[in-house]
C-alpha cells in the first residue's frame, strides 16, 4: 500500500483527519490530531521529493481508472517542490498554533479551527498534486472555503469583514476558473491536463479557447493576488489569527502561482500563452507595477501585519516577474523565489504571532523597545527581514540574484534596476520596525512582556534556519527548481 500510494495519501491523510478532529471534544486532542496529520504530511512530502528525484514524474490513477477517464494525480519536480513548501509550513505552524490559538480564539471554536485548518491543508495539497482541471477546482473550493472561515476567526470584529471581502473576491475567482474549465471541456471533451495539452492545439485558434484562457488567467490571478486584484489580501492577512496569517501567506498565494504555471505551461502550452495571447508582457507590466506600488504602500503602514501583507503583494510581483520572462531561467528564478518567500513570510508572520501573543497587538506604536524584552523573537524578525530585503547570505539574496541574472540574460536590464530599487524600499519598511523595536525607549507597559514560549520560537527559528541554509548553500533548491522549470518548459515545447 505504501510507496506507490504516497501521492494520494498526501491529500487523504489531512482529509480523513478533519472529520476525526470534528469528533474530538477536547481541543487538545483536536490539536494533537492536526499535529500528527501535518507531520505525516511532511514525512510523505519528503519521501515524494526523494522519489520524484529518483524516478521522475509520478502518476497515480485514482480508482485505477486510467486518465483521461479517471482522475490522475501527477507530481513532477515543480509539484514536489510545492508539496514540500506547503508541508513544511503546515508542519511547523502546528506546534506553534496551540499557544497562539488558545490566546486568540474562543475555546469552543478551537476544535473546529483545527478541522478547518486540516481541510485547508488538504485543499492546497490537492490543488498541487492533481493532474485534472476539474479536480483542481474542487480542491480550490475546499481550501478557499476553509480559509474564509480561518480568517474570520480573527480576534477583532474586522476579521469578519476581511473574510467577507475575501469570500466575494475568491468566489468570483473560483467561478471564473470554473467557467474557463467548462469552456475547455466544451472544446476538447476532456479534463485531464496532459490530455488537454494534447488536444488543445487543434482548437487553439477558436474564440472559445481564448475566452477560456482569459477566464482562467483572471480567476487564478485573483486567487494569487496579482497586483490590481490584490485588494482582499491586506485585510485578510492583517485581521486573521496569527497562525492563519502565517499559514495562508506562506502557502495559499504560492499554490495560486503554481496553478497559474500549470495552466500556462502544461495546459495551454507556452506557445499559446506567451506567443499568441501575449500574457508575458501583461504579466510583466502588472508585476512591475505591483512591486513598486505595493512596496511603497508598505512603507506607510503602521500595523506590522498589514505592512507584511503589502510586502507579500510585492513579492508575488517578483515571482510573476520571473514567470513572465517565459524562459527556463526566469521560471526557475520565479520558483526559487516562490520557495524562499514562502519560508521568509512564514517566519516573519510567526515572529509577529509571538509578538501578538505577548503584546496583544501588531501595531508599530506598541513595539517601542520590544527587542530588550523579546530578543529571540526580534532577532528572528530581523533575520527574516534581511532575507526579505535580499542581503547576501540569506535566501532572499539567492532569489534576487537568480531573478536578476534571468532578467539580464533575457535582455530586460531595466528590471535589474527595479529589483535593486524595490529592495531599497524593502529596507526602509523593515528599518522602521527595527528602529522602533531596538532604538526606542520601552513604554511603561513593557515590563510585563516576556520572551515568547519555546514551542513558538522553535518553529520560527526553524524557518529562519531554512532561509539561512538556502542563503549559504542554494544548490539543493536551485537543482530542484531547475529540473522543475525544465519539465514545465519542456512540456510546453512539445
Amino acid at each position, binding site marked *: 500500500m505504501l510507496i506507490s500510494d504516497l501521492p494520494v495519501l498526501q491529500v*487523504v491523510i489531512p*482529509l480523513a483527519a*478533519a472529520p476525526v478532529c470534528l469528533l474530538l471534544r477536547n481541543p487538545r486532542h483536536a490539536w494533537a490530531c492536526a499535529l500528527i496529520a501535518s507531520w505525516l504530511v511532511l514525512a510523505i512530502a519528503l519521501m515524494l521529493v526523494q522519489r520524484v528525484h529518483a524516478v521522475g514524474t509520478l502518476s497515480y490513477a*485514482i480508482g*485505477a481508472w486510467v486518465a483521461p477517464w479517471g482522475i490522475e494525480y501527477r507530481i513532477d519536480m515543480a509539484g514536489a517542490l510545492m508539496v514540500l513548501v506547503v508541508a513544511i509550513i503546515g508542519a511547523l505552524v502546528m506546534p506553534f498554533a496551540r499557544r497562539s490559538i488558545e490566546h486568540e480564539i474562543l475555546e469552543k*471554536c478551537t476544535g473546529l479551527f483545527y478541522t478547518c485548518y486540516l481541510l485547508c491543508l488538504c485543499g492546497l495539497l490537492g490543488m498541487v498534486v492533481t493532474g485534472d482541471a476539474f479536480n483542481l477546482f474542487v480542491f480550490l473550493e475546499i481550501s478557499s472555503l476553509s480559509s474564509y*472561515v480561518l480568517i474570520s476567526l480573527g480576534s477583532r470584529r474586522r476579521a469578519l469583514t476581511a473574510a467577507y471581502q475575501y469570500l466575494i473576491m475568491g468566489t468570483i475567482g473560483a467561478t471564473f476558473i470554473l*467557467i474557463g474549465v467548462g469552456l475547455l471541456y*466544451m472544446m476538447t471533451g476532456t479534463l485531464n491536463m496532459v490530455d488537454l495539452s494534447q488536444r488543445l492545439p487543434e482548437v487553439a485558434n477558436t474564440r472559445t479557447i481564448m475566452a477560456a484562457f482569459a477566464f482562467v488567467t483572471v480567476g487564478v490571478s485573483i486567487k494569487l493576488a496579482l497586483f490590481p486584484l490584490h485588494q482582499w489580501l491586506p485585510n485578510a492577512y492583517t485581521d486573521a489569527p496569527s497562525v492563519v496569517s502565517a499559514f495562508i501567506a506562506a502557502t495559499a498565494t504560492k499554490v495560486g502561482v503554481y496553478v497559474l504555471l500549470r495552466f500556462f505551461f502544461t495546459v495551454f502550452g507556452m506557445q499559446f500563452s506567451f506567443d499568441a495571447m501575449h500574457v508575458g508582457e501583461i504579466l510583466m507590466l502588472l508585476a512591475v507595477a505591483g512591486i513598486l506600488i505595493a512596496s511603497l504602500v508598505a512603507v506607510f503602514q503602521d500595523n506590522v501585519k498589514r505592512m507584511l501583507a503589502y510586502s507579500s503583494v510585492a513579492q508575488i510581483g517578483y515571482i510573476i516577474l520571473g514567470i513572465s520572462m517565459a524562459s527556463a531561467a526566469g521560471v526557475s528564478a520565479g520558483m526559487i523565489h516562490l520557495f524562499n518567500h514562502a519560508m521568509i513570510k512564514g517566519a516573519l508572520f510567526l515572529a509577529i504571532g509571538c509578538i501578538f501573543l505577548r503584546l496583544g497587538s501588531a501595531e508599530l506604536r506598541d513595539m517601542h523597545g520590544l527587542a530588550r524584552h523579546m530578543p529571540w523573537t526580534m532577532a528572528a524578525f530581523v533575520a527574516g527581514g534581511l532575507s526579505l530585503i535580499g542581503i547576501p547570505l540569506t535566501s532572499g539574496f539567492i532569489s534576487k540574484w537568480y531573478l536578476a541574472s534571468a532578467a539580464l540574460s533575457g535582455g530586460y536590464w531595466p528590471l535589474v534596476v527595479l529589483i535593486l530599487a524595490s529592495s531599497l524600499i524593502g529596507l526602509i519598511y523593515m528599518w522602521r520596525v527595527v528602529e522602533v523595536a531596538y532604538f526606542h525607549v520601552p513604554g511603561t507597559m513593557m515590563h510585563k512582556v516576556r520572551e515568547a514560549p519555546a514551542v513558538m520560537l522553535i518553529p520560527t527559528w526553524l524557518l529562519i534556519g531554512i532561509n539561512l541554509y538556502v542563503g549559504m548553500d542554494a544548490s539543493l533548491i536551485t537543482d530542484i527548481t531547475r529540473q522543475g522549470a525544465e519539465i514545465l518548459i519542456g512540456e510546453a515545447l512539445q
Partner: protein
Amino acid sequence: MEILIDTILLVLLMITGFSIVRMRSLLAATMLTSIYSLLSASLFVVLDAVDVALTEAAIGAGISTILLLATIALTTDREKPPQRTPMLPLIVVIITGMALIYGTLDMPHFGNPQAPVHLHVAPAYLHDTPGEIGIPNVVTSVLASYRGYDTLGELAVIFTAGAGVLTLLGYRTRGGNSMDPGIRKLLILRVIGKLFFPLILLFALYVQFHGDYGPGGGFQAGVIFATGFILYALAFGLGNAQRLIPHQLLRIMVAFGMLLYIGVGIESMLLGGKFLEYNVLADDPVSGQHLGIILIELGVGITVASVMLMIYYVFRSRQPEGDL
C-alpha cells in the same frame, strides 16, 4: 418544438433574474429565487439532464430557499440602498458577459453530435459502464466511480461549509419548551406534517438507493432527508426536532459520512488496489463496484443530510423569540 420551450424557459429565467436584481425586499427576492430554480430545473428536464434537474429541484427550490429564509429571519429583509452607483461592479459584469458571449461564438452548435464533448471521454463512459460498473445510470457511474474522487472532494466542500457555519455561528442550546404557542394554532399543518414526514423520508430512501437505476443518489437523497426533518421542525417546533435528532448526533453523523467514504478508499488500498478502486472490494469486479458505489453514496447521503440539518439548527437556534 423543444427548442421553442427552451427559448421560452430561458426568457422567463432571464426576466426572473432581472427582477431578482431589482427587488429591494429580500423575502420577495428569495421567493423569486425559488421560482428561478423551478424554471431552471424544468429547463434541465427539457434538456434531458434528469439528474441535474432532480438536484436543482431538491437543492435550489428546497433547501437553499429554506436556508436563505432562515438567514433573513436572523438579519433583515430589506436591502440597503447602495451609497453610490456601483459602477465598477457593473463594468466587471458587462465585461464578463461580453467575454462569455465572445466565448460562445466558436462553440459547437447546440446538439451537434460531432461536438468534441461527444467524441472523446463520454462515449467511453457510455460504452464501458455496463461491462465495468454494471449499473444502468451512467451519470451515477461517472460520479461515483470514474470520477468518484471529485465527488469525495465535493463532499468535503459541503463538510467544510458545515464546519464553517458551526465555527462562525456556534450552536446554542435552547431552553426546554416543548412547543411554542404559535404552533398550537397550526393544527392542520401538524396533521399534514405528521402524514408527510415519513413519506418524505421514504422517498429520500428511494432516491438514495435508486440512484443506480434512475436519477438520484446521495446528494439529492441527503437534501430530501434534511428537508423532511426540517418539515418536522417547522410543524412541531425546533425543540421537538432536536429531541428526535440531537445536535451531538448530527455532529457525529457529519464526520461519519466523510469517514465512510474515505474508509472505502482506504479499504480498497489495503486490499491491494488503488484509492477508491472498488473492484477489489468483492470477489468479482462488478459486484465490487456495486458495493463500493452503494457505500460511498451512503456516506454522501449521511453527511449531506446531517450538514444541511445542522446548518438549519444552527441558524434557528439563534432565533431570539420562542416562535420556532
